[in-house]
């Protein structure tokens, strides 16, 4: 028999696992007493509660055998490209400077779209970089290195 309500089943599993993880990790800290709670007290209670809620959600979903609650397909491509672009931006900002980090961010994230056209993205990127420089660096005085460290000397 296949579980019909896949979405809720996996939500329940997620909550159960996260609840147990929080409650489990909290055991590294001092529990204390109800009167003088240690740092472990509240997370343990909440983690237990979350795990219990997750269990209830999963069990309720398992009882439901009518199809229709399937999880939509995960599109890892756009997810990885978009979030990868964000991560690269963070990693590049210090060593390579704002301009290069922004170009990578904009170019890479735009590539995630189905309608990516290089000749549209180049002017868009140029416009956004200039806008950011005008508003944040010259306007609001944000302290971010603009160019790679070796060029600044």
């Amino acid at each position, binding site marked *: 028999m296949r579980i019909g309500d896949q979405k809720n089943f996996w*939500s329940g599993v997620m909550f159960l696992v996260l609840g147990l993880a929080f409650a489990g990790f909290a055991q590294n800290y001092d529990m204390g007493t109800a009167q003088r*709670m240690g740092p472990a007290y509240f997370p343990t209670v909440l983690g237990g509660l979350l795990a219990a809620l997750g269990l209830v959600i999963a069990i309720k979903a398992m009882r439901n055998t009518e199809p229709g609650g399937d999880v939509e397909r995960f599109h890892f491509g756009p997810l990885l490209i978009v979030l990868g672009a964000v991560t690269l931006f963070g990693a590049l900002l210090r060593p390579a400077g704002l301009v290069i980090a922004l170009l990578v961010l904009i170019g890479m994230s*735009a590539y995630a779209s189905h309608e990516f056209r290089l000749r549209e993205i180049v002017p868009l990127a140029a416009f956004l970089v200039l806008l950011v420089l005008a508003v944040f660096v010259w306007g609001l005085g944000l302290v971010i290195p603009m160019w790679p460290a070796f060029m600044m000397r």
Partner: protein
Amino acid sequence: MDLLNNLALGLATALTLHNLAYCFAGVLIGTLIGVLPGLGPVATLAMLLPFTYSLPPVSALIMLAGIYYGAQYGGSTTAILVNLPGESSSVVTCLDGYQMARRGRAGAALGIAAIGSFIAGSVATLLIAAFALPLVELAFKFGPAEYFSLMVLGLIGAVVLASGNLIKAIAMIVLGLLLGLVGTDVNSGVARFAFDIPELTDGIGFVAVAMGVFAFAEIVTNVEKHERREVFIDKVRNLWPTARDLKDSAGAITRGTLLGSLLGILPGGGALLASFASYSVEKKLAGTKASPPFGQGNIRGVAGPESANNAGAQTSFIPMLTLGIPSNAVMALMIGAMTIHNIQPGPQVMSSNPALFWGLIASMWVGNLMLVVLNLPLIGMWLLLLKVPYKWLYPAIMTFCCIGAYSLSNNAFDVYVTAVFGAVGYVFYKLDCEPAPLILGFILGPMMEENLRRALLLSRGDATVFFTRPLSLALLLMAAALVVLVALPAIRSKREEAFQEGD
């Protein structure tokens, strides 16, 4: 007349040239982003919050509030013109607003939405001013036990009144509470769940979480869809509704304002519930005699919900300002903004920062006036913006988010956190888990723990303290009653029916 004095102080603060400029900027940016598709008010606020750090607190909050109701208004514009609700509270505006637009009456629909919103906003501003004092006085009677119970009520109320699966929403709250506990425990100095990452000892930044879960997750899900939008942009003429339109909608505006103001004050209320409730009321009242029928371009179906959502948006500031309890995700962000500016949210804000408190309230009225003045003549510009394709838009959103995240503490770590929560938010989206309750829990987590600890310390570990103190008991009973009410089959089907209206 305390009320008048207070409002005078508020107006004096809001009408300084400086604050007027920030209010204007907020309303303008808010409308602009509200009109642009694919970015809701929570994501907008999260994106722009870091850039208000350098402002004085009053100006920052005035601007953020302006962004909020500007985005709200912009959302209605797209609802009417493109049949695309800029955010959930304008879902019902699509029903009749878009139909009016298709019949060549887009101008009247936009006009009545602006007029209704302004009237509702003005009434709600007065209500906030009137309710603030008694609520603050009540709040000063609260001890830690009452605060804890109040937060329970607020969180439960927030999910009961929202749409979706109740128990999943409660689980999201608890997860939010847990995530809020990451970082150094104030009582013992222990760094909880920090895994030896120095940045995590300060806790996870709520802006980074909100950006990731709302903005980035939204972008990823939008990008993977092959979506074609049919933009309905004929000439928008005759922005002023006719005398008959005004007469037809006067009742709807009045009812919408009252209903919205009332529902906005409730924990978990606010714009969404208000607009849905108002639409059902108008539809019921009109019955079968309505011409044109509801759903086919009846102006009352625009006037009522639009007034209600603006009134609700505004009165939802009441619990936030007086008790420090957010009733929805937007208010949670406002609380976060206050904390960043070193203002401890709660009843003491009114006495310790009267200029900020009343200035913010007065600025809402000023901002609403600006919205009317701004939107009716500028509608042509908003129409142009609607034509900007999403593939150009989202790289810009990401640029602003990334720079905002970095500037939180001039550290790339917050950028990584937004990426992680973007992935988390994507999973939530796929599993139909509403992220708004998570943000509420996240903001309230540390406060709840603190009050729980204090309450049990004072009672020497006796947990019955929450039930023996009458105020606390009353609050908990209200929370329990809400859960029971929603669990009742009759009401449950009504609740589902109400939220299905817009689908």
